[in-house]
């Protein structure tokens, strides 16, 4: 299967196979008016299988969200058919308004205008805790 190279846009590569739908949804790529290609289960020497998303337009994307979902993703910025910048992601130190605290005793459960904020406490095990109640972040986004 052939998916054309893009002249200008963003390529999200090395997405863990199966994660592209979540990234697509959380970045709101369905709302774009440009071409967006999602390639699933592509062969990868390094990963075995991987997903790729190609976005045919330069847009602002929240790297923290992608870093939280899948820190191994590489983000390439394409201009005139060439990669002009490649960003390696890492787990962000804090994540805001991406996941919601599930603790019914947390102040965020009754004061809806508070930002949902989590802090990375254990990089190795990818553990985030709510800055208010210290509950561990849920595994899934909102």
């Amino acid at each position, binding site marked *: 299967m052939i998916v054309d190279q893009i002249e200008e846009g963003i390529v999200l590569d090395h997405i863990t196979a199966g994660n592209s739908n979540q990234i697509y949804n959380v970045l709101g790529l369905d709302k774009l008016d440009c071409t967006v290609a999602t390639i699933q289960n592509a062969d990868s020497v390094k990963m075995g299988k991987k997903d790729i998303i190609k976005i045919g337009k330069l847009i602002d994307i929240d790297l923290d969200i992608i870093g939280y979902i899948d820190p191994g993703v590489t983000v390439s910025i394409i201009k005139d058919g060439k990669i002009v910048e490649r960003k390696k992601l890492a787990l962000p130190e804090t994540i805001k308004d991406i996941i919601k605290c599930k603790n019914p005793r947390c102040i965020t459960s009754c004061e809806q205008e508070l930002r949902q904020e989590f802090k990375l406490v254990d990089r190795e095990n990818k553990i985030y805790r709510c800055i*208010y109640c*210290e509950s561990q972040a849920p595994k899934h986004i909102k």
Partner: protein
Amino acid sequence: MNNLIDIMQLSVEEIDKLIETALDIIDNPEKYAEACHGKKLATLFFEPSTRTRLSFEAAMYELGGNVLGFSAANSSSAAKGESVADTVRTVGCYADIIAMRHPKEGAPLVATRTAGVPVINAGDGGHNHPTQTLADLLTIYREKGGFENLTIGLCGDLKFGRTVHSLISAMSRYKGIKFVLISPEELKVPKYIISDVIEKNNIPYEEVTSLEENMPKLDILYMTRVQRERFFNEADYLRLKDTYVLTPDKMKLGKDSLSVLHPLPRVNEISVAVDDDPRACYFKQVLNGKYMRMALILKLLEVEV
């Protein structure tokens, strides 16, 4: 801004200094009688409390200051739906320092953002209660002469007991500490406290269910109440509330040098007959709490005496 939300915000040196101040207050109360003259403490208690609120108020009065506030959410504008941020922003216009209790975890942290004056967490749900830990620490210091080489038994509700979590964190910084965690299966210390605090500091610990079998090894026994207000299910509360009751018979199994602490209020987890035992320290703990709150108010208001 100076605030106290979590006991771990205080370094070991800062705790030493607070204890030093508290001991000086005990020896020389007259020296501190006007230390906070003209200052006001607001006690914002969105959840009922007897001891903590009165302790803060007594502390401020004994420092020569004044007190204002409320003692239940339904007597504040929270009942009208006002946010914590707005309430404390308003109160910050009237008071020099705020002590706040709230049933929701993290509410005092929210308060620090808008109060404009120091905020003390006087208990937020099952999360933190740092000034109770200060009371516990002064009691341990006065009973044991220091914080090192102690086997500490914590008994009862170790899951929701915020005082237990704070005390474990605070004591984990001293040498030669061992924890014996005595609770029913359903009320064990949360895993993150075990991994992030106890194991991270390489502190020996045991998780056990029998109080009797473990009494002989303890230097300190920290009893806790199974708190009805932390349960969503009444049946679970009723099933677990009487798991441990400390009686004179069980006290016979303890060392002569044992110190029994309890954050109070007790329901029936310590028999009244234990009160006359010289090893029962829980009412001394109440008094120590007032002295430590006085020391803390002085520190946060940056009052030198």
